[in-house]
């Protein structure tokens, strides 16, 4: 099934039901479908055709939800990009997937204008009196039925070299994931989901999709910077489902006089994107005993792979659970053969939720999607080391590469090192992840300065100008030389160990 059909079916079922709540805007299913169909006509007028990509650079809001469904109604694939993305990476993404059109937040129009990749690209700007808002007045697009094998989304993630890779998800992949997730979360039209995770992120976008599939209501919030404002929203909108990342759980735990009555309407909380520390899980269960806590594991490449049924939390402590319905998760050795229970190996995922591959990147695709040595069917190699117990419950051990997970977002050390090495005054740099109470891991830079007057503040300032916030090192340590292996290769592993420092910052 194609994803825009979720919206059409839910609107046909009960058009008056509230689909979207964002700020003071409330859209019924009928109104949301109407706006998306009108925007689809505007996209078509501006040259968007079946198979094209539409780059969406919007904050969380009803406009982003309309943009996504309009893109699908117009037959194109949506490429949602985090609006905090800096120019260099934005240019790389646009160069890679050559969008037919970009929908951009008004305050980011200047950023886009300055990039050569966007100079010829049609643009809709969202804001007061914006061309996006004007485009909602178009006559609704009359569309023809399209196959669910077409691409629905192209979501960029960071590979270990830091180059963005576009994960290609067809409608049928997204549909399979949504069907599975709504089954184990037991979602119904009575649910009210709150999304504060960026909808440019697979886990955030997925909330919009599952809400529309079940005819539920989606409450969209822009930021978790003010947790109290979100708690009030949960209470006032009677939210039942609250997806979070572990960094958000850590922030909730830091609240001093939090009243559990804010969360009386909650039925479940989900956690994904990074391992949820057991201390956080235990705190959430004790603070909100009426709420089912779902610990989950996934990747953009398959949306979701595993979940731990809340009833199993005590029996399977530390596990991310079993394969989601309809998918298969195996722990395999280097030859791709299943290992014995309790033995560490790479997690591989098979099922209709697995991506098509990476956009225009056959090398990376062949590395991620490899044939099962027995059946020949392609499986997703996650690059994550796991163990499985005799019942198939999976436990995450470590990444196979050096990718850092900070605030639930992937950071490629290489990408940060490349920026550091461009900074005047830096001779050499290594970047590693170190444990952090709130972020899970913090980015730490080990730097050899060519200019002795260089300060950690100078380094952070340079980074903040040249990379996304979550990549900026929280700790900068100066050393006289980088730690090297006996063969003379600079070693991230050795850099992660403490050393005598000549300077550091919080």
């Amino acid at each position, binding site marked *: 099934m194609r994803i825009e059909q979720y919206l059409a079916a839910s609107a046909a079922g009960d058009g008056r039901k509230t689909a979207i709540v964002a700020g003071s805007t409330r859209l019924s299913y009928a109104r949301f479908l109407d706006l998306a169909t009108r925007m689809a006509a505007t996209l078509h007028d501006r040259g968007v055709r079946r198979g094209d990509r539409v780059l969406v650079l919007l904050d969380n809001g009803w406009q982003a939800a309309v943009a996504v469904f309009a893109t699908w109604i117009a037959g194109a694939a949506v490429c949602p990009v985090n609006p*905090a993305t800096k120019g260099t990476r934005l240019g790389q993404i646009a160069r890679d997937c050559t969008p037919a059109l970009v929908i951009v937040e008004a*305050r980011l129009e200047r950023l886009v204008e300055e990039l050569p990749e966007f100079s010829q690209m049609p643009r809709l700007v969202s804001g007061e009196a914006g061309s996006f808002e004007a485009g909602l007045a178009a006559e609704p697009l009359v569309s023809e039925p399209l196959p669910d094998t077409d691409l629905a989304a192209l979501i960029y993630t960071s590979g270990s070299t830091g180059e963005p890779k576009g994960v290609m998800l067809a409608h049928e992949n997204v549909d399979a994931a949504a069907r599975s997730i709504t089954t184990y979360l037991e979602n119904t039209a009575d649910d009210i989901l709150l999304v504060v995770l960026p909808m440019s992120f697979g886990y955030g976008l997925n909330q919009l999709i599952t809400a529309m599939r079940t005819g539920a209501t989606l409450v969209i919030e822009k*930021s978790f*910077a*003010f*947790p109290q404002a979100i708690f009030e929203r949960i209470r006032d909108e009677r939210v039942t489902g609250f997806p979070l990342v572990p960094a*958000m759980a850590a*922030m909730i735990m830091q609240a001093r006089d939090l009243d559990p009555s804010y969360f009386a309407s909650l039925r479940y909380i989900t956690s994904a994107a990074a391992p949820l520390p057991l201390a956080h899980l235990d705190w959430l269960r004790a603070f909100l005993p009426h709420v089912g806590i779902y610990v989950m594991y996934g990747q953009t490449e398959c949306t979701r792979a595993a979940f731990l049924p809340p009833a199993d939390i005590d029996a399977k402590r530390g596990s991310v659970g079993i394969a989601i319905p309809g998918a298969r998760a195996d722990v395999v050795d280097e030859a791709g053969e299943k290992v014995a229970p309790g033995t560490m190996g790479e997690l591989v995922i098979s099922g209709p939720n697995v991506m098509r591959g990476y956009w225009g990147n056959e090398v990376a695709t062949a590395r991620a999607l490899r044939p099962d040595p027995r059946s020949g069917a392609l499986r997703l190699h996650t690059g994550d080391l796991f163990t499985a117990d005799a019942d198939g419950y999976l436990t995450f051990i470590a990444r196979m590469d050096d990718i850092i997970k900070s605030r639930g977002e992937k950071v490629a050390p290489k990408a940060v090192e490349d920026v550091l090495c461009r900074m005047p005054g830096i001779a050499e740099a290594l970047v590693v992840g170190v444990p952090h109470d709130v972020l899970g891991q913090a980015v730490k830079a080990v730097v050899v300065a060519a200019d002795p007057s260089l300060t950690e*503040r100078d380094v952070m300032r340079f980074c903040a100008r040249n990379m996304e916030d979550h990549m900026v090192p929280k700790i900068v340590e100066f050393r006289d030389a980088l730690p090297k292996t006996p063969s003379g290769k600079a070693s991230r592993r050795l850099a992660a160990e403490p050393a005598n420092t000549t300077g550091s910052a919080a």
Partner: protein
Amino acid sequence: MSDETKAAIRTFIVENFLFGDESHALPPDLSLIDNDLIDSTGILELVGFLEERFGIQVADADIVPVNLDTIDRIAGFITRKQAV
């Protein structure tokens, strides 16, 4: 709300969230969140600073955009807290 208060808040933001980058105009009515100047963990650092520097107690319920999303609002919030 004094200019001195606003200047202290501005300095804290520049030092801690812009790493000393003075090139940003940072008008007092600019939304700090919408413009990606402060992220979610940054707000907690800001609250810690306000409590220490201005001798106020900030409750969870105070940590909302209407009190803290612009330099003007933060200054007004401090004045109200100090008047209690």
